[in-house]
Every structure is written in C-alpha cells, then in structure tokens.
C-alpha cells in the first residue's frame, strides 16, 4: 500500500524532473532538475530494499552534478536562457523520438517476454543487502570491478599529467618571466 503510493509519487517526480532537464533552455533549471531527479531515483532503491545502492546514488550523483554545476558556471551565464543553435529541427526531433522508442523497446522486451531473472537472488539468510553486493562484486564480477578501478586510476593520472605541466611555477612567476621576454 505505502510502497505503491511512494512508487507513484517518486515516478511522477522523477519524470517531471527529467522532463525539465530536457525541455528547459536555462542551464540552471536543467542542472537543478537533474540533481533533483537523481535524488528521487534513489527513492526507488530504498523502496526495493537496496539501501546501499540508494545511498550510493545520493552520494555519487550529488558530487557528480556538483562538478557539472562548476562547468556550467564556467561556460554559461546561468541566469540567462541559452540560445539554442538548431538548424534542422525535423531531423533532430525524428532522431530523438526514434532513439527514445528504441530504448523503451530494448528495456521492456525482456520484461514483456517475462524471462528476466536475477542471477544472484539475495535470499541468503541473515546476510544484508550491503554484504551481498560485496560478495557479488568480489566473486562473480571481480575482473570487471578491478578493470573499472584501473581505468579510473588511468584517467586520474592522465588528468593530473595534463594539468601538472609547470606546476612548480605559479602564475605570478609566469607573468614575471613573460615581462622579461624569456620563453617558458
């Protein structure tokens, strides 16, 4: 009863939020709605009894959308509407509608043919949701998990390398050298 009411409230709120993300021309509205929508999605995880994933959804996406805000702050005047530069409206609309329909079909086909089942049903007695995620991650999905970790490490190191050229020299020193006409 309560689960059903909560499910419909969260679904309606999530759909409204992501609708605003897509249709709004103001980047501040779009990003705020994105943050709200991500947090409402965590409601579904809590309803399904997957507290760990729900909390991870909140933690990860609050940080991720926060970084997105930083980029929005740098690239746009967030208090004004963005002028969209669309030339071929028909192609754009038809492509987006086709891709949306495709995603719905891909997602709903296994449900329609009713052969969707969880590979690791969480029915072990006395073991919580968090522990089961740990068990599955470090047995069945160990290699994908470690590969993802290595990929994140690689991207972190490359990010640091890209930024860290001449990190030992600060910006005022750079101006000082440029005034003297030396090549940095």
């Amino acid at each position, binding site marked *: *009863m309560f689960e059903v009411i909560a499910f419909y409230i969260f679904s309606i709120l999530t759909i409204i939020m992501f609708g605003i993300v897509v249709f709004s021309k103001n980047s501040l509205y779009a990003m705020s709605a994105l943050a709200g929508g991500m947090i409402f999605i965590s409601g579904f995880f809590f309803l399904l009894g997957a507290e760990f994933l729900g909390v991870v959804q*909140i*933690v990860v996406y*609050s*940080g991720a959308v926060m970084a997105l805000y*930083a980029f929005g702050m740098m690239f746009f005047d967030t*208090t004004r509407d963005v002028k969209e530069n669309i030339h071929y409206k028909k192609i754009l609309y038809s492509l987006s509608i086709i891709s949306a329909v495709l995603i719905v079909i891909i997602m709903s086909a296994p449900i329609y043919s009713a052969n969707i089942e969880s590979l690791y049903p969480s029915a072990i007695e006395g073991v919580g949701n968090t522990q089961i995620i740990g068990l599955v991650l470090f047995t069945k999905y160990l290699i994908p998990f470690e590969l993802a970790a290595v990929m994140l490490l690689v991207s972190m190191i490359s990010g640091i390398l890209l930024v860290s050229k001449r990190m030992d020299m600060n910006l005022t020193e750079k101006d000082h050298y440029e005034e003297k006409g030396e090549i940095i």
Partner: protein
Amino acid sequence: MDWAIVIETIIKSIVVLSVVAAMAGFATYIERKVLAFMQRRLGPMNVGPHGVLQLAADGIKLFTKEDIVPQNAVKPIFKFAPVIAPVTAFTSMAAIPFFPEFTVFGYTVTPIISDINVGVLFVLGVASTGMFAPLLAGMSSANKWALLGAARTVIALLSFEVVSGLALLAPLMMIGSLSLIDINDYQIAGFTSWLIWSQPMAFLLFVIAGFAETNRTPFDLIEYEAEIVSGYATDYSGIRWGLFFIGEYANMITVAFLVSIIFLGGYNPLWIIPGAIMILIKISAFIFLFLWVRAAWPHVRPDQMMWLCWKILMPLALINILITGIVLI
C-alpha cells in the same frame, strides 16, 4: 503495514524537528555568549536576564523583515534554495539514534526514526547534499559575490567529501557494519573501548572534515566577509536568510552526534552517568569546540583548504586505512 508504526514515526519526526530547531536557535545565543566570553566582551545583555530573550528578538526580526528578491535573479531557484539547507539537515537526522532505548508506560521507544542498515553513509550523503543550498543560492542570485561563493562551495564539497569518507572507512573496517546502532554497541565495554583510542587519526581527520562540511570558521570560505562580502547569502534577507542558518546549526548538531556516536562511545553509560546524559555532555562539548575554534583560529584561503584536504589529509587517511587493514589481517 501497521498504522502504529506510521503514527510513531510521525510523532518522532515532529519531536526531532521541533527539538533540534529549538536547539539550533539556542545555539546562536550560546555562540554569541561564548564568543563574547573569549573576546572579553559581555555579548547580548539587554533583552531578558543575561540576554536570554535575545533569541526571541532575533526570531521576530528574521520573520518580519522584508523579503527581497533581486530583479535579475532566477526567481524560482532563488526562492527554493534556502529550503534545501534545513530539509537536508533534518532528513539526515532520520538515521541517527539520539538516545538509548527507554520505556514509557510499558511501550519501548527506540529514539531513531528509521534504522536503515547504511546509517552512516545515509547521514553523510544527505548532509553533503545540503551543499546544494549555497550553490543554488549563489548561482541564482545574479551577483558576483554570490557566484564566487557558489564556486567556492563546489571546491569545498569536492575537498572535504573525500576526506570524511576515507577517514570513516578505517573505523568502519573494524566494526564491520554501517548501522549507527551497531557502531554504538561496538563500544559498549566502557571508556577504554571507545574508538578514539584505537583510531585517533581517523577521529582527527573526521573532525576537520566536519568543520569543512558545516562551513565553520577555519573553513568558512564560502561566506567569508573580508573576501566576498557574505558569499552565497549576499542577496538574501529575512526568513530566507534565516533558513540557511537553521540548516547550518542543525548540521553542526548532526556532526556532533556523528562524532560522539562513532568515536566517543555514543550513548553508552559511563560509570554512574546514564547514557542519555553522556551523549548530551559529549554533544555540548563538541558544540563548544566548534565555537572555541571559531574564536581562536584564522580563516584559511580556498587554495590553502584544497592543499590541506588533497595533499595532507587524504594521504593521511589512506595511510590510516592501510595500517588498519594490516593490523586487522
């Protein structure tokens, strides 16, 4: 589902809301008095005995002051942003066990609104979502100081969240559970079993991250008057401005509860002092520490804060985790 649980939860939520909001309001009075004491002043003295009723005067002023929305602001978000601060601060309290269990008229009350298995993560995650309030306020104000405050909010969040998460990982490895009740019961054996003795480094790091999370003084770079007027709150007035501060003080209380439960033995009784009194003492001491640090420490610049968090605190937290792992194996 039982209707009794629903009614009990609603009653608990209302009690937590009203008590914590009152505590947050009272904390503003305590703060002014303690700061005055440290700076050899008297502080508020005129309204009521020793200025106790100053609280009511401040409240009346905040509620009745004209509410101004700047012309060029993004109005819906400008109006909505202050609500986020208290809402997230109070939501995060849903997973905190405030007191030990007690019995009223034969009915056992557990003073926690919802005992989810991932209590600590929930509290930290939702509390850090509260940083959206200054961010949205700053970005929607159409004001350069506010925008600078919003930009500083992002670096503050990205700096402290890593430290607080990693610092907490080491004690959680020892306990093996994320539920705050389990964490409290781990330290049930008394004074020597408090986690601060086995994890002093994690305690220190978590407290520093807590100061950054609540925007308290050494790290209050998002509203530092001397650099950016009032940061994100420059354009706010009246009750909207007040909501930010209810959120900030509620967050202080949350962090105080978290530190007391995780590192200082929680609500376990000590000697002849019952558990409920113990946790109140710990929380009061911690709030006093917040105020003491505000009186004693200078501000840090944003670059100093990032340097501190990423180059000193994060490696220390990682080393702490490594050592804890080696010891546990």
